[in-house]
């Protein structure tokens, strides 16, 4: 019930929109009984504040957030360690492959020499059932070619053909420089043949002088190691010498070069080597 003690409370509730319809009716009846309080009601209605809508938060964009650019995969628990281990394994395999390739390249130089010579001797032994005299000639031919540092892959029957010609024509006959291609079809039918690839080989004239022996080879001559090893060492030495020459060449190029630093068209400084 609205009284002179609590009417202000009713007025505030009315101004704030919190007075229900029954309360509004009671307050209306009370105000009709006390018209001198209407001015007070008007004052309460005036103490309502209005926002200043021109006052705004400047640079509102600084508060905005952007959508994430891509999908993020969240690694949790043991999956995280598994992913890390997998990555480490990939890196390790990559490093091993890289270093392994490098080593193979180095070995391949010496291996080629051995592999090209060995099958020839074997093929002579197994495929050709010739007289002992012929075999001796073949071995001598092999030795001569090694001394000349020419190491072609020669099929056994081709060597044999060459030897037969030598027997017929004698030692004074010069062999012309030509390419001969040996094929399996030319082999005699009664021979137990081993198939080889048809390889083009230069048949050198016998009068050709052996290649001059390099100083490195002379230095290695006294070593108590096999010829194959000496050749391997020799080739290794040649490879090192070639690399040293390349480094020297780069160094000489650098010596003859100036390094100029420019900003636009203006030269800042120049380094002379």
């Amino acid at each position, binding site marked *: 019930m609205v009284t002179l003690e609590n009417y*202000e*409370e009713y007025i*505030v*509730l009315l*101004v*704030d*929109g*919190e007075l229900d319809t029954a309360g509004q009716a009671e307050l209306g009846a009370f105000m009709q009984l006390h018209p001198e309080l209407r001015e*007070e009601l008007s*004052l*309460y209605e*005036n*103490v*309502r*504040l*209005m*926002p*200043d*809508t*021109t*006052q*705004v*938060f400047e640079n*509102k964009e*600084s*508060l*905005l*957030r*952007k*959508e*994430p650019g891509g999908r993020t995969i969240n690694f949790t628990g043991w999956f995280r360690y598994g992913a890390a281990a997998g990555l480490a394994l990939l890196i390790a395999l990559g490093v091993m492959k890289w270093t392994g390739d490098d080593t193979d390249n180095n070995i391949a130089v010496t291996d080629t020499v051995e592999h090209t010579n060995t099958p020839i001797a074997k093929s002579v032994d197994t495929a050709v059932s010739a007289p002992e005299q012929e075999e001796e000639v073949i071995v001598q031919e092999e030795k001569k070619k090694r001394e000349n540092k020419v190491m072609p892959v020669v099929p056994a029957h081709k060597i044999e053909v060459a030897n037969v010609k030598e027997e017929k024509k004698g030692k004074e006959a010069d062999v012309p420089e030509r390419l001969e291609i040996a094929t399996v079809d030319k082999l005699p039918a009664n021979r137990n043949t081993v198939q080889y690839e048809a390889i083009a080989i230069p048949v050198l004239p016998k009068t050709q002088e052996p290649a001059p022996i390099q100083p490195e080879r002379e230095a290695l001559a006294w070593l108590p190691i096999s010829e194959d090893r000496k050749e391997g060492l020799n080739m290794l030495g040649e490879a090192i010498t070639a690399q040293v020459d390349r480094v020297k060449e780069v160094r000489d190029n650098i010596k003859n070069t100036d390094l100029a630093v420019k900003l636009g068209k203006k030269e800042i400084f120049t380094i002379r080597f």
Partner: protein
Amino acid sequence: MDVKEYNVCVNQWADALFRFACKCTGHEEDARDVVQGSFEVLWQKRQDVALEKGKAFLFQVTYRQAVDTYRKKGRITYAEELPEPASSYTQSNPDLKRVLERALAQLDEKARALVLLKDYEGYSYEEIAKITELSDSQVKVYLHRARKVLKEYLVRVENVI
């Protein structure tokens, strides 16, 4: 609440929060810091706040931070630090608006915040109670006292004029 909804909250409520914080702290720079801090809190807790609850959440955080800031700095020159009202002010009497601004400065920080939430944002007593973590009856009492102070200030000024 996702990023898009968060940005909707920024565009809809940043200005209102700034005006509310300005009146609560009495200083625009402090108000900017308070609003930025409130949106930072909303961003961190966006997973727990639905879009329709965003406004109430923001006003709750802003209310707390503004009251704390005001208490720490103990400002008493609130009315003098505020800028002059703009010419486009919608209240019928610009003088009345200025008087009310000064009258608002007479209130303590809690009563001032309650009046602003009621008049600026039109929140009900129940909603104000949730935002300010007061009881409904406390809100009613605080607002009754605040309105009475404002009315008496207005009467006093009118008598002087």
